[in-house]
């Protein structure tokens, strides 16, 4: 019995160490937002908790830099939301539509369409980043939400996932629906979409986090400050820290935290959906 206890203690020790490894860096960011910047540039992160959090939060979220006055934390938060939600929504809608067409219709060019779509799984955006940028520039979509979101949607992950899921739906359902005289649109909306609810939720969480966390593409596409997302703004933060008279660590760290908190909350609150979606979508 005593031996068993020792190993349990060891297990917990490992898990606690792992948890600390994960959480300490974020606590450090938080601590730095509570003390004055002048103290940070002298001593760096410490164990003291100051009273500057409110002040830094106000500066980060509402005070703008730049001539236009549009580059506040709040506007970046808005852009991040639009990117995260727009991306997740676009991807799921397009993916479901395409997957439905491929799985449930006899279509001569379905196989061809299938391959056209699934080839996109092979090459991530990063390897064709510059030409994608040129295309967006030719289309005059730099510094627009469309230019930010649509090229990111041009991949088949969601289509692939819904195709797998639709194929696991019992075939009798379609037949039953047809006997009831339900057309394809009715079947899709009344039966397939409700059936897919959990999957849609899981996908939405994964895609939201993925979209929210995009960095390279927004860095290239958005050069107007009022189009910055929070994650893209990190680059600006680092540059401003370099050149500032007194580096504003408090303000910067608040922005970094705001960039992290929404997707973390989504993942933590919808944990079971998210885990299910993640581990099953990749099978």
């Amino acid at each position, binding site marked *: 019995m005593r031996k068993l206890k020792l190993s349990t203690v060891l*297990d*917990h020790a*490992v*898990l606690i160490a*792992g*948890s600390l490894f*994960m959480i300490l860096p*974020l606590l*450090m960011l938080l601590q730095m937002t509570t003390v004055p910047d002048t103290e940070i*540039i002298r*001593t*760096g*992160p410490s164990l003291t908790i100051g009273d500057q959090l409110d002040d830094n939060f106000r500066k980060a979220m509402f005070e703008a830099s730049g001539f236009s006055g549009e580059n506040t934390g709040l506007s970046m938060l808005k852009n991040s939301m639009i990117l995260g939600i727009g991306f997740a929504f676009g991807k799921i809608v*397009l993916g479901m*539509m*395409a997957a*439905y*067409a*491929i799985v*449930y219709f006899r*279509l001569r060019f*379905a196989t061809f*369409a299938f391959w*056209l779509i699934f080839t996109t*799984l092979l*090459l*991530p955006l*990063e*390897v*064709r*980043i*510059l*030409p*994608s940028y*040129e295309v967006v520039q030719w289309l005059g979509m730099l510094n627009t939400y469309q230019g930010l979101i*649509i090229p990111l*949607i041009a991949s088949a992950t969601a289509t692939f996932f819904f195709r797998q899921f639709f*194929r696991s739906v019992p075939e009798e359902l*379609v037949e039953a629906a047809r006997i009831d005289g339900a057309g*394809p*649109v009715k*079947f899709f909306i009344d039966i397939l979409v409700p059936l897919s609810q959990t999957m849609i939720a899981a996908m939405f969480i994964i895609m939201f*986090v993925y979209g929210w*966390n995009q*960095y390279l593409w927004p860095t*290239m596409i958005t050069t107007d400050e009022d189009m910055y997302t929070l*994650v893209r703004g*990190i680059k600006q933060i680092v*540059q401003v820290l370099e050149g500032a008279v007194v580096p504003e660590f408090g303000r*910067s760290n608040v922005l*970094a935290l705001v*960039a*992290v908190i929404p*997707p973390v909350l*989504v*993942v933590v609150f919808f*944990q079971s959906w998210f*885990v299910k979606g993640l*581990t099953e979508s*990749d099978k």
Partner: protein
Amino acid sequence: MKRAGFTTVSLPVLLLLPQLVIIAVFFYWPTVVALQSSFYLQDPFGFGSTFVGLQNYIDLFGSREYRRIASFTVVFSLLVTFFSLAIALVLAVKADKVLRGARTYRTLLMWVYAVAPPVAGFIAVIMFNQSWGPLTEFFGFFGHDYMVGVNFNDTAFSMILASVWKQVPVNFIFFLSGLQSIPRSVREAALIDNRSASGRFWDVTFPLLAPTGFFLLIINITYSLFDTFGIVDIVVKGEPGNNPMTLVYKVYVDGFRGNDLGGSSAQSVILMVLVLALTIFQFRLIDRRIHYT
């Protein structure tokens, strides 16, 4: 498609159209442009260009620096992959074992999944600040004068640490779910057959987790190749200097910072070939995986 499906023609075409249009414009067109640009040298403003055949590729393969970056990318990817898999596996095995606080541990160990790579890089920049970074002081305590941005290995270590920190949670989630799907009967049988815990792990658990591991291997390599861009960019503060960099970062530096469209496109094409090879490898692994289970 064996389904007893509908026979309408116009509807599925309508359904497919948006996706196909987007893919055509934002996937196939850029891919063709990349291929085409890689054979030219172009004035960035678009006034002049010269067809140079394979010159961009020849220049790249002849460049000592490009080969150096390629080898760094390989080493970097292997280290990030190994450490994030190993740490995640240990944590998953422990989290699967404990009874008390299992849910709390799970949450604490997985939330970093949602942190964006550049934020991980930003944290590394603070941790390794030359004047007062906590980790700089930690290494200083052991007599190592840690200099991120100066010493190549120190900078590389910061990048690897940030990348591993960011990647452990994904692996943890997959390993844990893999462990939890091992049937109870198998576990009980193993308990009888094998007395030592480590013996049980290596003889039973590890082989059962192997398919998950193979799958994660590819995920992790892809992550280290592409998604670490944000970490690299923030840790070097946008100044390549003598800092380590990955192949994707080099595409960005040459194409976007230096406006060398031809050279950067040729690098993109090389990366495409690399990813294609990886994907083919992955498909074969998935085949094997089905075979295992």
